[in-house]
């Protein structure tokens, strides 16, 4: 090698050639790097983010509706819907077979369906599944996805459906409390941006786009125990008398809370089918009727309040009818001379009309309005009716006479119950509430106002007790151990301006215990066609059944133990 040095030839040309190629390669690398970093940067950045960053929804629940003791009436529970991407799943038929087996679907039909929709990317296999089962299904293969949804359940079903109402598929309230308190109950799902890894699992929270806000819970005034009893009794009466419809309301006389409100026919809100408007309507609040004899206590109260009569007054109803503007006002028969209690006991139209005629029209209008006729009961329920009660300036002499016994004006059963609660509550009127009332939170004068003298209310209450007594029309409303006060009504239905001979409404409104009323209840049964039609025959037994159970359940002390004491061989008061 020593003399090989001389033989070394320096190929200058080759040297530069290689150097040039290396430089060129380096330059192209730098150029590419610059191009990616500067020119294409935004595009690549956004592409990367698109693959990693997702905006996902944070779930939020619609509020639960409870009864006054915390029994749920409407609950939202999470469910999962299973969906697939047809082209993706069709490549994995064994998995699809497993999935259909798990879901109880026909494999061949499913494949046919998916092939038909092969150009779509989103097909539901099954909606609203229990999350546990859905999780098992999703675990079978990669191409099966879940979508979280919420299903609203109504555990009490048809017993309280008119009050609670229901929501639509999009979880929006459509009827009842669900509609009335939509803003309060509504959930607002949140949104947040997250980073997901290759397998789709969320690995980092980037930002909260929108805060999730779950709906608020609602505690209603309903007592499900009473609600159930009222529902059962009303349904039974409706069937027994083959009636067209029926409604009943139970109020707490001291707070104005609605403890129970039921209607027939009813519907099951858990089933979406067969909901006609006739079934859906909360008749107790929306439907009005002429109250008939049940209004007589208020005619008397208006007159007693103005000092025109007291319990010693007597009215001569002979001969059992009289003429007003050419129309007769009639009683069933000639009752002769009656005291005020007798007018209620016998339900004398003539007596009530005679009393009304001693009142100025304006006075009568003012008193009836004060008792709540023509006024909404203050619940703000959807489609709440204020009834029909015209201004006194439009009254004819006949209107003045017939309104005294409940024709020529109309009320809802809830309005009627509220009016009776004035008598029960010593002349103080309350706004009704479907929401639980905490009396300590509300000053007295804010929830009630005096519309009748306490002495008048007491006098009328004592008269109403006689109606349920042995001489009255409502003997079947009597409850063992308790003093009951109430009034029956049997109303001829008016259709197209005329009165139907054979179509009646049976009504009863009453309260218990009469010594210090705690509960007020009103019942109306529309067109009873079997087994009687009088209020005392049809509506009073419903009152009796509900009241006797309600008084026991609410642990209200009996105030009439004379008979019990006698049957035990002990003298009353011993």
């Amino acid at each position, binding site marked *: 090698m020593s003399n090989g040095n001389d033989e070394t030839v320096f190929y200058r040309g080759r040297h530069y050639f290689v150097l040039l190629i290396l430089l060129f390669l380096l330059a192209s690398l730098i150029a590419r790097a610059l191009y990616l970093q500067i020119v294409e940067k935004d595009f690549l950045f956004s592409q990367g983010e698109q693959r990693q960053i997702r905006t996902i929804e944070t779930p939020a629940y619609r509020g639960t509706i409870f009864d006054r003791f915390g029994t749920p009436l409407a609950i939202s529970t999470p469910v999962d819907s299973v969906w697939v991407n047809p082209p993706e799943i069709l490549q994995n038929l064994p998995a699809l077979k497993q999935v259909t087996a798990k879901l109880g679907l026909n494999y061949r039909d499913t494949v046919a369906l998916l092939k038909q929709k092969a150009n779509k990317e989103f097909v539901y296999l099954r909606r609203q599944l229990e999350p546990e089962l859905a999780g098992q299904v999703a675990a079978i293969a990669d191409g099966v996805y879940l979508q979280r949804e919420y299903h609203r359940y109504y*555990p009490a079903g048809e017993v309280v459906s008119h009050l609670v109402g229901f929501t639509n598929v999009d979880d929006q309230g459509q009827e009842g409390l669900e509609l009335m308190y939509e803003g309060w109950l509504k959930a607002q799902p949140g949104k947040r941006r997250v980073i997901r890894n290759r397998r789709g699992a969320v690995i980092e929270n980037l930002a909260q786009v929108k805060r999730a806000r779950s709906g608020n819970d609602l505690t209603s005034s309903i007592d499900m125990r009473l609600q159930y009893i009222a529902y059962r009794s009303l349904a039974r009466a409706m069937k027994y008398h083959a009636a067209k419809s029926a409604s009943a309301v139970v109020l707490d006389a001291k707070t104005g809370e609605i403890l129970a409100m039921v209607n027939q026919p009813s519907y099951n809100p858990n089933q979406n089918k067969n909901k006609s408007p006739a079934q859906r309507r909360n008749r107790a609040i929306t439907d009005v009727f002429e109250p008939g004899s049940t209004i007589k206590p208020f005619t008397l109260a208006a007159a007693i309040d103005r000092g025109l009569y007291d319990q010693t007054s007597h009215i001569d109803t002979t001969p059992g009818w009289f003429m007003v503007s050419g129309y007769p006002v009639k009683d069933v028969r000639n009752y002769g001379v009656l005291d005020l209690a007798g007018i209620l006991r016998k339900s004398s139209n003539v007596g009530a009309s005679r009393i009304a005629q001693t009142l100025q029209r304006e006075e009568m209008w003012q008193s009836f309005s004060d008792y709540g006729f023509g006024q909404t009961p203050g619940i703000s329920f959807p489609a709440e009716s204020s009834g029909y009660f015209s201004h006194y300036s439009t009254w004819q002499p006949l209107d003045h006479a017939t309104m005294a016994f409940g024709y020529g004006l109309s009320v809802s059963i809830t309005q009627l119950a509220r009016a009776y609660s004035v008598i029960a509550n010593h002349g103080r009127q309350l706004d009704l509430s479907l929401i639980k009332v905490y009396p300590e939170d509300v000053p007295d004068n804010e929830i009630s106002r005096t519309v009748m003298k306490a002495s008048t209310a007491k006098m009328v209450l004592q008269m109403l007790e006689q109606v349920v007594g042995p001489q009255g029309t409502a003997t079947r409303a009597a409850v063992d151990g308790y003093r009951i006060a109430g009034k029956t009504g049997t109303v001829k239905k008016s259709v197209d301006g005329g009165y139907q001979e054979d179509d009646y409404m049976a009504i009863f409104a009453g309260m218990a215990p009469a010594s210090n009323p705690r509960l007020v209840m009103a019942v109306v049964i529309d067109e009873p066609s079997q087994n009687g039609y009088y209020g005392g025959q049809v509506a009073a037994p419903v009152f009796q059944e509900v009241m006797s159970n309600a008084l*026991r359940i609410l642990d209200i002390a009996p105030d009439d133990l004379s008979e019990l*004491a006698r049957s035990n061989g002990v003298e009353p008061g011993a």
Partner: protein
Amino acid sequence: MPRVYLLALLLTLVLSSAITVIYVKHESRVLFAELRNTQKLQDHEVIEWGRLQLQNSTLATHSNVESRARKTLKMRIPEKVQLVQLP
């Protein structure tokens, strides 16, 4: 010479800072995974709670309780004569 030391010091600081960033990032992902798991657990419990509430209200339906009381337990409302008033 001191310049070389300064450079070495800064290099060490930069490197350790970089490693800390990596470590903290990892830590945050671990904690986030834990959070996700806890949220999933919570979700599961909420589902279970709803299910139990529904089951409870189904079993405790008043008609159900009533028919059991009457048929299985043969309970009934006492007659008037069976009531005794305590003084």
